């Protein structure tokens, strides 16, 4: 199959499905066949989504197996072994036991290893976010100055000591939130919606190819 044909098939599917979803959006409730087909296609979307995640997981496993086989550094091999071991453990407990994911073994590993590690990592993430914000926050443009000023006013508003020290702070902060912020949010939402709409239109005419990984022939 030539490269151009390989490119055209997914592009054709993408365009066709976009056009169908558009028709379904505007079709009245009497067109039950169209609505049923849309529901079915959405279900297929979930199946394909699951498949692509599985495909990605397969690529990931292959990368780690190769890394262990190459054994370039102890650091890489060590972490790859942990990944492979954890995958094998969860896969075995989740699929090969009679109760699958309700199996006490699976639940034990999930609760005591996976969830505990996730909670710790997410908690750490917040510290890192604050650290990242602190390190990088500099007033380098009018936009960042406006954002910074808003952040200072509203943070002081949320702290009990802020309104206690500055009496006019609470109404000012609320006014900023309800006037500036709300107006900008609506403007932003409209602009983003239009941007998404135009992207959808590009998909409809077959010009949006980012999802099918093809570059145009030159």
């Amino acid at each position, binding site marked *: 199959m030539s490269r151009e044909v390989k490119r055209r098939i997914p592009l054709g599917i993408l365009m066709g499905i976009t056009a169908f979803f*558009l028709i379904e*959006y*505007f*079709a*009245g*409730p*009497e067109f039950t066949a169209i609505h049923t087909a849309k529901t079915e296609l959405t279900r297929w*979307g*979930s199946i*394909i989504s699951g498949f*692509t*995640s599985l*495909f*990605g*997981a397969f*690529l990931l496993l292959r*990368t780690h197996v190769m890394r262990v086989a190459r054994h370039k550094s102890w650091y890489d091999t060590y972490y790859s072994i942990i990944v492979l071991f954890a995958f094998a453990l969860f896969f075995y407990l989740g699929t090969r036991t009679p109760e699958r994911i309700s199996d006490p073994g699976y639940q034990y590993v999930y609760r005591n290893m996976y969830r505990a590690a996730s909670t710790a*990592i997410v908690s*750490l*993430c917040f510290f*890192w*976010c*604050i*650290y*990242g*914000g*602190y*390190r*990088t*926050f500099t007033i*380098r443009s009018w*936009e*960042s100055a*406006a*954002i*910074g000023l808003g*952040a200072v006013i509203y943070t002081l508003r949320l702290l009990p000591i802020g309104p206690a020290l500055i009496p006019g702070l609470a109404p000012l902060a609320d006014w900023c939130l309800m006037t500036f912020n709300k107006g900008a*949010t609506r403007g*932003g939402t*409209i*602009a*983003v919606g*239009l*941007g*998404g*709409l*135009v*992207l*959808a*239109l*590009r998909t409809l*005419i077959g*010009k*949006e190819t*980012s*999802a099918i*990984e093809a*570059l*145009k022939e*030159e």
Partner: protein
Amino acid sequence: MTILASGRIWDLVLFIVLSVTMGYYLWRISTGKPLPKIRSLPAFDAIEEGVGRAVETGKMVYVDAGIGGLTSGPYVPMTMAGLNVYRYVARLCARRGARCVFGTRNTQLLPVARGIMEEAYKAEGKIEEYNPDNVKYFPLTQRTATFMVEEGTACEILVGAWTTACLIILGASARAGAIAIGGTARWIMNYAFGIAADYIFILEDIYAAGAVATGDPVITTTLAVEDVIKIITLALIAIGIVAALLGYDFGAFMAL
């Protein structure tokens, strides 16, 4: 029998206007007539500077398309815009000889990202320089940050759907001394790029960047279509304000 779903008349009108405008600009392209000038995006122009810096310093260009996938959900358009920018960056890096690394925490993007990078090197005639290991899976943003500091980063480009975690990467980029370029269409996260990135794509700028990155005149023309609709939307808002002041229920009229 109702042909049109209720409450969607104005949606249809908007779609027709959009399609007609698009058709008009496509006609202009086909007849060789001049097209509207697209303003330059400083953040997009900075990508070349970032890649140049990567070539000079021998450090990498790090690209990330955020948390979104490609099959469903509201983040798909943002991810698509991010991948368009990534394709442009990968090709620029292949041409100039800089190392481009794409990191993701969504396994769905792994095969697509590898395909894009491979195609970029093929298109530049340097397929022997393509290294699939430069597409990396980082389940945790902290790991991304560590990687960036350890390996050395000259420029980072974050375009896509982002959560607060982008601050971690932006913090790491500051520590690595990298140029930070990024943006998201998620309103709530624009503050992070506003305060922490050197160059920011504000909201729908990421879609514009994705379009400009393709270098296709048809795609860049769609930005002009977007502007036409914006003008119509602004006019509708103005009419709505006047109508509300005069006591008319414009909202009910628009909900037809």
